[in-house]
């Protein structure tokens, strides 16, 4: 496994975790509330904020991974960050 596919596997794992815990299964049946809302709803709100940060990081650092084959020249000025590692 080269560096690029390792990185790709890492991001896939991140996506799986994001999907898996958007609903806090470990709080199943819990009815505790905090500040008027169930704690599991607070978890979900926090998780969505985290997802936003993760998507932001992904867009900055790994955008193009698994998709761009990059055998052309890149004309987009916002797209120079993605190096050869995924290619």
């Amino acid at each position: 496994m080269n560096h690029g596919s390792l990185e790709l596997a890492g991001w896939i794992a991140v996506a799986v975790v994001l999907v898996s815990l958007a609903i806090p299964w470990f709080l199943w049946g819990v009815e505790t509330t905090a500040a008027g809302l169930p704690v599991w709803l607070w978890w979900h709100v926090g998780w969505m904020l985290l997802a936003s940060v993760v998507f932001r990081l992904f867009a900055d650092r790994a955008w193009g991974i698994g998709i761009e084959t990059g055998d052309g020249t890149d004309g987009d000025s916002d797209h120079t960050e993605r190096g050869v590692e995924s290619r």
Partner: protein
Amino acid sequence: MSVALQVGIIVGYLILALLVGVYAYRLTDRTAEDFYLASRTLGTVVLLFTTFATLLSAFTFFAGPNIAYANGPEWILVMGLMDGIVFAILWYVIGYKQWLLGRQYGYVTVGEMLGDRFGSRYLRGLVAGVSLLWLFPYVMLQQVGAGTALEALTEGAIPYSVGAGLITLFMIVYVVLAGMRGIAWTDTLQGAFMLVMTWVALLWVLVAIGGPSAATATLADSAETAGFLSLGGDFYTPQWMLSTAITIGFGVALFPQVNQRFFAAGSRKVLKRSLALWPILCVLLFVPAFMLGSWAAGLELSVPAGDNVLPVILAEYTPTWLAALVIAGAMAAMMSSSDSMLLSGSSYFTRDLYRPFIDGSISDHREDLIARVGVVLFATAAFVASLYNPATLFEIGDAAFSGFAQLALPLMVALYWRGTTRAGITAGIAASQTFYLASLFTAIFPATYAGWTPGVVGMAIGLALTVGVSLVTTPATDERRARYFEGVGGD
């Protein structure tokens, strides 16, 4: 006062939308690509809000709070997972790749993209045909909804058929004039308006009932709603929550009016920024809209059977003008989804059915004209259907998300696996559609599979067949196997 005010607000919105449409018309190129995709130039805010407003329409405003009212606030988690996370990931996995390919080869529809890669106009026609099958009744449902809402709003002064007819006529004029650019602009106003109004309504109601803790306490006090605060229950089983989130999340990505927006982004930067903002936007709308629905269950409100809970709670706790604004916003949201669907439906028909099968030699200018005629035909046909409101169409419209979800996995296999063959993807699409339609309309297949819905099972069948048949068949000579894999992302 209330009726006049609500009608006034809706008329005001229509006039505003029309002005935006006329302005957008003056900027268009009179080409099909400009009409469908605003020449691929949408910026971050416009793309984000047009997708948002298109995706989250009357369903979010009326059906969502109703579900939370009847069953508890877990619906927020289901919608958050499907839209905020699953759809966001597909935004990259399907959307970004489609955007790159669309820019490279000039694709306007997903059927065109697949037909080109697999060298098959029949595959292209199949994808468009299947999409129109699910889209048509869904458009009809919006007209039914608009007609019913107008009738209720004016206390019968505008009968159902006249209301639905007026809305249809307005949408035709508007879509034919404005095209994608105008629709995207009004959607942006719409999305922002929805968001702000929902929060104002929430705060108003909370002040009236003594804050969130007091509201939640009333839920815990009543035997009927005591279960609302604990995660899960008889209605919200893990299988049901996941099935719903998966089928709707994947289905949304293949809904023509959403899928086509993947082609319309102006640049990579637009796609990147939209992705990061997406989950926040979702949670900002879902939490207030559905908590209002849930809290309503603990208050002593009488919601007549078949009525929506949101108007009832607003009428009880907020001033008339505010309730009118929120309801008018929801009506307009219904229309803003319908106009996008009309535009996309027309483009699927023109590009994937008319051009390949009837007359392939038409000029770009002529295609633009046919597309506008297509809008008129599509909307009129849906309107006529809405007058009869046949039960079969109603069921199809209701099942549309799962129907579109059946297309997602064969598409993803084709986008990421070079070994996909024409026979494989055709088998995957045809079999999963047949299975799902049969599950809806016949008793051949069971209604659930250990709690999982036929929609999810159909997706698995589509995936298995696309991969399996591809493995045992060889590609046809006119397939372009490298189409999705070489030079992607290069300019």
